[in-house]
Structures are given as structure tokens and as C-alpha cells.
């Protein structure tokens, strides 16, 4: 193959050769090349295979508009799928492979699919694979379809930095208009940021011979120097990929290949779109053949990379820009044949190799076809921001119409395709003036797809949508453009229809004989080009996304050999010691039942509610009556949603007449606090209620077990701990070394328990003393896993585990307030709805299995005899060390009436039997609790 590199200097550095491979073959390019330009320079045209038919495809475009050349690029052992060859900078040692092609783009064994195209039209998948079940076909289809494979190893050090930024004027697009506008704005004293997605500014200017008596490179350098001299900033290789609510612009700033782009979240007072325009394809038979390319793309390959894409070129254009292209390509040594595609249907000849172009009976022996059906302004960002589009008949294009707040379009993006006019417009806008439209020289003959034409005419190159597919969609009444898009997948490829949308809309308009603007466009959505997901989260992973809450006693737990894990957002001891996890947990349970367990309960909520209206407020917040609670006493209760669903359970202590402490579940503290605040501020007098969340300020050490009282007695607190003086469900406040201490006698295990709370800074001293006092009694620290078993043995629930989004308090056996409580409370009316009164509600039950049986799996379904319906499910299930047999809790339809019934429990194809029993397996009379 001969070299297509010309004498034209371009913007590459010929002193810096770059070696690379494509589909296993070695090639050489230069610094400044893209993968596509380097391959074209080497005479390689087939750079990929289409999505559906595996047709050979070469580049149509020279930049972001190319839908065809998509590659997996490996560099330094790391693979990056779906790199567009036209925008991927060439790096020494790159190994590129066409996606969707095996073994190579030039020879693809699936290309036989193309022979079946008659049966693979639009909607083929929908029609063919629905019977008997789509899922039978899905794996096979997924294997055949799709682009690059994702590497299983996440690349190391691929993390995006994120910047929040602001400027007065953001100019997007660094072509002639963008440069001139940014300079004018900067010189008018505005804080300017200019971005362009190319590594070298100038847009299409490099194709020019001169601009304002300077060479393009000189002129560009002048503008950049002036912008920066006036305090402006310029960001090359930076894509503005989306405009979001309230004018937020997402900028992806690319660095070296293989590194994650930086994300700039840019807020600009004013946004200037100078994003340019694209050549749109001409729809003709075989227009997808490698060697058919955009006119502007050929000019860009020559101007930027010194690559002449062909020697004998047919130039099929309907507009006035073709003259300059012809002159430029002729000067570089190409022989140009001008074709007027509007004068008669044309078709490409040849297969993988383009052999020529035919128009009617005339055949042109050419190796390349350059096509342009006119310019389409890049208005994506305009539409993201909510700007309107107006149809311009003279330019046969949608142009920016009514502007979104703070946004203006200039240059080719605004339909100003003539350079002189674009410059004066850009300078006027940059200086803050209105632009006066000058005469324009751009002209074109309308040229749109003609339904009924022969041959396969491609509209969406990447997704293999042809004119016939659009006709089929229209016949089947998918005529709205949004339906057309989804039925044919037109415009749904990774290029998001940059080249295909206009042709698709025009085809639909022609088929229905409607004016094109009446058909309308589909919605433009960010991102403008694919950007890595990584960029969106940046460093916000793991601890920087969801920081764990840390216990004041963490050093003590670590010293005691705790296995720390995340439980409800806290880093907590799951169990202590090394060895078999199950054995360690079992030993902790037994020590708590036989002597005592010492447990760090600090994450338990400690939300204080104070003030003259506090009593009414908590009485309203709780399902249970709190008004009758006396100071020094504690009550267990539920908080409900207005829908009557249990959202949290826990105890509330009344410390004094106007001061309560709500001890909600560890994992619900934030949501309960928010719930309380919302009701305090909206519906109550916020000056008479005060809510203070002290969960993190206080630590809590719990002693639970038959020896708990003896252990507590060893701490000189000066309290009478007898059951008469300090009964279950009471609270006492005292001091220890001038530090307030609160001791609540409540239990989450069924054994006598004391929760000792103290300022977190003093917690370690308390913990050490309690552990030391417990040691002679055989008490040990216990983790949350042991506690979960202890509470399940007793039938104490965990909201969200043993309840679901439909559980009401009477389903859990707490029925009195529903029947008796008079004052209003949250969720009250919902507890008397038809649904709340249904007899077959799921209620909490215990599930017993025979001694020696295995533990029931959590989540297993309780089913009726025919296995046709789920009646409920297992919510908590453990092998009880205390009782020596499994225990389980579950939610079961009409559960309380089923006591004694034997039910089937189904899990993963296996069915077992269990007996419904009361949801309490340990000390049902509560003798130990009240001891």
C-alpha cells in the first residue's frame, strides 16, 4: 500500500514517529496523528464493522462525527474499549483492534449476516424473538451484538479529578468564531474561558490559506496570546459534553491517553456556543462503503495530518463549500470529478474496495467519494439548555432560535457559515453588542433521501439503519420521530445520530409528504460524546462517598481483637477474636446468657426533644401513648409514617417533665431526626419544641445478662440497683467524677440489661472499668452478630428486617393504641383503612423446626400447598446457641391465627416444613427480663 501522506505540513511532528499496531499488523504514524489519520496515511480504510450486519466500515468523519471507526486500544497492558479512532491521539506502542469484528475488521467471520439483511430489518428482534420467550434468545443476541468488551480489571490510577469552576463568559469551540469572540470578550474586561475539544485550536481554519493576512497558525496564536494576555483561560482537549439545569456546563478535560479526564463543573454567567457545523451524508446506494467520506473530513485529514485520503476523488456535494475543497485537494495532488448528486441517483461501486461511482449510466473510476448534503449546525448544547430551533429553508438546516437564558450561538453553529460574517458576528457578541447579519455566500440545492430509491442506502452507519428501514417503520405506523428512533434504533448508537438524525427525519418527512420542520427532531441529551463513567464519580468512592461513622471506643475494640465491619453506616465490632466466626459468635451468645455480655451500643439514637410542647409533640410522633409516661420512665414504641407503616421502633425515656430522649435504631437516626424536624417546623410551633441529636456526643456501654447487676454494682455510682428501686424500663441520671452518666434499664436481649451513657470523650475509661468488673463474672465483650441472635431468640424485631413496607403495628402484635389512643398521631387514620382491616395481613410469627434440623434460610418463602403463591417469608433465622435448635421469625398472612399450623417453606427449589409458633423462643414469661 502506498503512503497517503503528502508534502503538506499539517500539524503533525514528522520528527517524532510513532509505532503502533492495528488488528495485529504494525504501522507507523507521527506525533499529532489520530489513530484514524495514521491508518489512512498507511492506506488502511476498513477500520471497523457495523453493529448489525458486520459490514466493513471506514471513517466517514475526521473528528467526533465519525460513527464507524471504533476500537479497543491497549497501551501498557491496559485495555480501553470503544475508542473512536478519529479522536484518539496516536501514542507509541498502541495496539488497536476494531470492535465488533473477529478476527479482524478486514476479515470478519460474522459478515455472512449481511446476506440475511432481508430478514433483519427494523423491528426484526421485536418480531422474531418474542416467542416463546425473549430470554431464550437474549444470550445469543447479546454475544453477537455490542461493541467493545469491558476489561475485567479496573485500570489502576484511573481516577478523575473534579473541579467546580466559574467564569463570566464561557466560549465553547475554538474555531475562528470562538477565538475571535473570546478575544473580544477578554479585551472588554470579561473573565473568559475558551474550550475546544481538539488538542490544537482553530477548528476548520487550518484548511485556509490565509486569514486576515496571516497564516492560520499565526492568526490562531495571535488570538490565544491576546486572550491570555487579557486574563482569559484556554482549555484545549476539553469537551463541553452537556449543559444541565441552571446553566451548569460539564467539561471533560482530557490529558494523556489512558488517564481519566478531569471534570470541570463550570458555572458561567454567559455561554457562547461556537461549536461549528458538520457535513451531513448524502443518502445513496452503498454510501457506507469504506472510501465514502465527508468532504470536510477529507479537508481536515489533509490540513491537520497531511493525509490525502484518495488520488481519484468524486466530489458529490450540493453546496458552495465544495469549490474550496476541490481547490485544496487538487493542490495536494488529487484528481477531482465533480458530481451533482441532485441531478440523479448515485451509487457506490465495489465491495470492501471502492471501485467507482455511478450516476445513471455514467461510471466514474474513482477510489474515493467525498459527499456533503449540506451543513448541519451542532446545536446539541443549545438544546440541552432548552433553546429552541428554527428551520431555515435557505440553509436547509435547523438553526438556533429562541435562546435559553444566558446563551448565544455564533459562527457555523448559528448558521453563519461564511468566515468574514462569522468573525464580525463573533466580535460583536464578544464585545457585548448585537450582531448585524452581513450578506452570505453559502448556498445549496436541497438534497434529501428519496423514498423508493433502489439499493441499500444507509442512514445510520453505526446501527445499520437504511432508508428501507425508515420506510418500513412508516408503513407500520412508527411515524413520530421518537418512535422511529426506538423502532429502528436510528440515532441510538454511540455517536447519537450526529450524522444520521437529519437524514432520518428528512426521509420520514418525504415518506409522509410533510414539510421537514413539521416532523421535528428527537431530543438532544447529554453527553455530546461518550465520556467515561469514572469522570462522574471521580474520587467520590468508598470512604469519600459514604464515610463510615466511627466509634469513640474503636481503639478498645481493636485492642480486644474485634472483627470490625459496616453495620448501618457505622464501623462496629461484628464479633471478637480470631478463629471460626460461628464459634466465636456462639461463645459470645452463651457468655451473655450465662454471665453477661458487654456491648458498645453507642450508635443507638439519642435524640433529645425538649420544650413546653415536647410532651404533645412526642405523643403525636409516636404510635404509643407517651403523655402518660412519668419522668424517670421508659416506654417502647413505634414511629409510623402517615401511611401507618412502621418506620422505626425504639424506646423513649422521659428525663424530666419537658425533656425526652428518643433512642431510635442505629441505622435510622438521620431519617428519624429529619422526620422530627419536618413535623416540628411544619405543623407545630418551633419556638416551643427543640430537637437536639446527641447520638455522636454520647457513647453507650450496655451490660446484658444475669450478672449485669453485679457488674454494675462494682462501679461506685451510689445507686440502689435493686429491682424495686431500679426496675425494668426506668432511667436514672447520676455523675461519675463530675461527668454526667445516664443509666437506662432496657433490654434488647430478654435478659436484664443496663445501657450506660456517657460523654464520648470519657467512654474509654467507662468501657475499661466495665470490662474489668465483668471479667471475674465471666462476662465478655459481644459484637452485633451475637446481639442479633440474642434479640431473635427473644422475638425482638429489627425494623426493616422483620418488617417490610406494608407492616403496621397491629401486624406486630402491638394493638392497643390503634384501638384506644384518642389524641391524633402520625399514621392514625391509615390504621383504619380497608387495607389495614384485611384479615390476611402479613403478621409477625415464629417458625419452629425440629431439633437437629438445619436453619431455615432467611428470605425463604412460606408457600401454600400447591407452591403457587407466597404467603410470606422468613425474616430472621439463626441457630440458637442458648436453646440448641434453630429459631426463625417471619411475616405470614393471617399469621397470628395460624399458631400450631405446619407450613411449607420454599427456597431455591427445596421445600421444608416448619411449625408456626409465637414470635418468642426465650423466657416468654419475662422472668429474666424483670429479675
Amino acid at each position, binding site marked *: 500500500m502506498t503512503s497517503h501522506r503528502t508534502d503538506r505540513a499539517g500539524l503533525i511532528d514528522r520528527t517524532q514517529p510513532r509505532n503502533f499496531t492495528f488488528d495485529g499488523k504494525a504501522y507507523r504514524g507521527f506525533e499529532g496523528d489520530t489513530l484514524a489519520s495514521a491508518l489512512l496515511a498507511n492506506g488502511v480504510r476498513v477500520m471497523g464493522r457495523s453493529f448489525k450486519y458486520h459490514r466493513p466500515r471506514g471513517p466517514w468523519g475526521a473528528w467526533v462525527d465519525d460513527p464507524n471507526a471504533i476500537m479497543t486500544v491497549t497501551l501498557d497492558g491496559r485495555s480501553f474499549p470503544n475508542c473512536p479512532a478519529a479522536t484518539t491521539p496516536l501514542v507509541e506502542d498502541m495496539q488497536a483492534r476494531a470492535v465488533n469484528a473477529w478476527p479482524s475488521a478486514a476479515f470478519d467471520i460474522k459478515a455472512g449476516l449481511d446476506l440475511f439483511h432481508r430478514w433483519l430489518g427494523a423491528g426484526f428482534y421485536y418480531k422474531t424473538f418474542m416467542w416463546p420467550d425473549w430470554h431464550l434468545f437474549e444470550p445469543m443476541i447479546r454475544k453477537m451484538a455490542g461493541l467493545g468488551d469491558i476489561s475485567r480489571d479496573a485500570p489502576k490510577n484511573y481516577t478523575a479529578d473534579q473541579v467546580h469552576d466559574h467564569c463570566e463568559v464561557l466560549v465553547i469551540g475554538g474555531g475562528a468564531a470562538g477565538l475571535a469572540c473570546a478575544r473580544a470578550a477578554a479585551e472588554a474586561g470579561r473573565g473568559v474561558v475558551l474550550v475546544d475539544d481538539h488538542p490544537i485550536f482553530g477548528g476548520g481554519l487550518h484548511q485556509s490559506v490565509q486569514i486576515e493576512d496571516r497564516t492560520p497558525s499565526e492568526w490562531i496564536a495571535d488570538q490565544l496570546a491576546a486572550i491570555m494576555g487579557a486574563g482569559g483561560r484556554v482549555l484545549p482537549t476539553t469537551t463541553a459534553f452537556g449543559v444541565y*439545569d*441552571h446553566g451548569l456546563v460539564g467539561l471533560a478535560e482530557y490529558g494523556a491517553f489512558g488517564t481519566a479526564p478531569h471534570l470541570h463543573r463550570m458555572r458561567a454567567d454567559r455561554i457562547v456556543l461556537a461549536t461549528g457545523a458538520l457535513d451531513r451524508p448524502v443518502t445513496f446506494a452503498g454510501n457506507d462503503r469504506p472510501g465514502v467520506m465527508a468532504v470536510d473530513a477529507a479537508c481536515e485529514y489533509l490540513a491537520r495530518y497531511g493525509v490525502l485520503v484518495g488520488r481519484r476523488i468524486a466530489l458529490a456535494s450540493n453546496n458552495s463549500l465544495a469549490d474550496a475543497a476541490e481547490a485544496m485537494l487538487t493542490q495536494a495532488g488529487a484528481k477531482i470529478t465533480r458530481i451533482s448528486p441532485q441531478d440523479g441517483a448515485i451509487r457506490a461501486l465495489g465491495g470492501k474496495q471502492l471501485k467507482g461511482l455511478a450516476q445513471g449510466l455514467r461510471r466514474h473510476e474513482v477510489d474515493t467519494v467525498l459527499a456533503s448534503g449540506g451543513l448541519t449546525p451542532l446545536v446539541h448544547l443549545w438544546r440541552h439548555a432548552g433553546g429552541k430551533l428554527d428551520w431555515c429553508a435557505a440553509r436547509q438546516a435547523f438553526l438556533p432560535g429562541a435562546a435559553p437564558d444566558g446563551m448565544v450561538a455564533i459562527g457555523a453553529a448559528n448558521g453563519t457559515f461564511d468566515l468574514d460574517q462569522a468573525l464580525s458576528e463573533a466580535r460583536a457578541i464578544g464585545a457585548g453588542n448585537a450582531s448585524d447579519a452581513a450578506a452570505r455566500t453559502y448556498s445549496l440545492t436541497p438534497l434529501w433521501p428519496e423514498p423508493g430509491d433502489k439499493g441499500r442506502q444507509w442512514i445510520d452507519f453505526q446501527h445499520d439503519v437504511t432508508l428501507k428501514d425508515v420506510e418500513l417503520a412508516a408503513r407500520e405506523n412508527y411515524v413520530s420521530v421518537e418512535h422511529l428512533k426506538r423502532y429502528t434504533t436510528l440515532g441510538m448508537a454511540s455517536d447519537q445520530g450526529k450524522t444520521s438524525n437529519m437524514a432520518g427525519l428528512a426521509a420520514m418527512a418525504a415518506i409522509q409528504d410533510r414539510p421537514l420542520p413539521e416532523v421535528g427532531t428527537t431530543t438532544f441529551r447529554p453527553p455530546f460524546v461518550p465520556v467515561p463513567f469514572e469522570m462522574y464519580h471521580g474520587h467520590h468512592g468508598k470512604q469519600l462517598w459514604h464515610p463510615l461513622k466511627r466509634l469513640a471506643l474503636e481503639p478498645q475494640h481493636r485492642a480486644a481483637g474485634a472483627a470490625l465491619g459496616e453495620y448501618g453506616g457505622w464501623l462496629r465490632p461484628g464479633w471478637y477474636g480470631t478463629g471460626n466466626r460461628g464459634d466465636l459468635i456462639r461463645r459470645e451468645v452463651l457468655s451473655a446468657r450465662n454471665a453477661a455480655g458487654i456491648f458498645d451500643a453507642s450508635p443507638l439514637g439519642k435524640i433529645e426533644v425538649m420544650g413546653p410542647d415536647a410532651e404533645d409533640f412526642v405523643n403525636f410522633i409516636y404510635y404509643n401513648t407517651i403523655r402518660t409516661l412519668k419522668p424517670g420512665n421508659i416506654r417502647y414504641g413505634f414511629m409510623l409514617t402517615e401511611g401507618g407503616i412502621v418506620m422505626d421502633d425504639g424506646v423513649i425515656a422521659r428525663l424530666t417533665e419537658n425533656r425526652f430522649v428518643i433512642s431510635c435504631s442505629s441505622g435510622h437516626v438521620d431519617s428519624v431526626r*429529619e422526620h422530627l*424536624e419536618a413535623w416540628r*417546623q411544619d*405543623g407545630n410551633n418551633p419556638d416551643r419544641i427543640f430537637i437536639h441529636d446527641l447520638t455522636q456526643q454520647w457513647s453507650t456501654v450496655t451490660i446484658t445478662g444475669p450478672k449485669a447487676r453485679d457488674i454494675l454494682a462494682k462501679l461506685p455510682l451510689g445507686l440502689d440497683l435493686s429491682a424495686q428501686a431500679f426496675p425494668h424500663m426506668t432511667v436514672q441520671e447520676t455523675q461519675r467524677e463530675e461527668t454526667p452518666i445516664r443509666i437506662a434499664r432496657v433490654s434488647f436481649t430478654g435478659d436484664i440489661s443496663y445501657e450506660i451513657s456517657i460523654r464520648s470523650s470519657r467512654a474509654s475509661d467507662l468501657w475499661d472499668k466495665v470490662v474489668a468488673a465483668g471479667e471475674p463474672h465471666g462476662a465478655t465483650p459481644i459484637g452485633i452478630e451475637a446481639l442479633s441472635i440474642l434479640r431473635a431468640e427473644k422475638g425482638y424485631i429489627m425494623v426493616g428486617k422483620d418488617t417490610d413496607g406494608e407492616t403496621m403495628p397491629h401486624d406486630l402484635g402491638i394493638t392497643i393504641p390503634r384501638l384506644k389512643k384518642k389524641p*391524633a398521631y402520625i399514621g392514625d*387514620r391509615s390504621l383504619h383503612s380497608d387495607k389495614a382491616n384485611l384479615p390476611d395481613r402479613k403478621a409477625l410469627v415464629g417458625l419452629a423446626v425440629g431439633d437437629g434440623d438445619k436453619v431455615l434460610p432467611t428470605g425463604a418463602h412460606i408457600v401454600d400447598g400447591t407452591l403457587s403463591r407466597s404467603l410470606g417469608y422468613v425474616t430472621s433465622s439463626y441457630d440458637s446457641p442458648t436453646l440448641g435448635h434453630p429459631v426463625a421469625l417471619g411475616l405470614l398472612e393471617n399469621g397470628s391465627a395460624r399458631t400450631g399450623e405446619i407450613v411449607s417453606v420454599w427456597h431455591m427449589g427445596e421445600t421444608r416444613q416448619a411449625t408456626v409458633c409465637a414470635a418468642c423462643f426465650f423466657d416468654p414469661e419475662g422472668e429474666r427480663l424483670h429479675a
Partner: protein
Amino acid sequence: MQIFPCPFCGPRNETEFHFAGELGKVRPDTGKEVNARDWATYLYAQRNEKGLVREVWLHLTCSELFVMERDSLTMDVRASKSLRGDAL
């Protein structure tokens, strides 16, 4: 990313806020008989208007509820003020 003005903290990113309901929703007095229709309306019926809306929002970082007037179509934010005192 929208910017909402907390009356206490100033303009902040929308991620700092939770929607807390449409303004003007009154809880039926459940101390008295409330029929099922009224209760269901209170629980589930949202006006969900297109255009100018008045809503209650919670600024998570300062825990204050406030009233915000905004356009549900254009996402324009017109005004915000404390929930106390006169509503907008």
C-alpha cells in the same frame, strides 16, 4: 445541577436539599372522623402542577424547612423564604 437558595444559608447545590411537600397541604384533624376519601387525598393526591409551584423544601445541612417558589417547567427559581410567618 440546580441551585436552590436556602433563606438561611444562601445558594447551594440541589443535592443538599430534600423535597418536603407541596405548600398548603393541611393535615385532616384525625381527632375527629376523617372519611377515607379525604385521607387518601391528603396522603396521595399531589397537584403536580406544570409551571409556577410553591413547595416546602428541607435544607439538610441546616435542617430548616422553607418555602420555595419555582417553575416546574423551566426550573427557574423565583424566591424562597422561611416557613415561619406569612407564606409567599
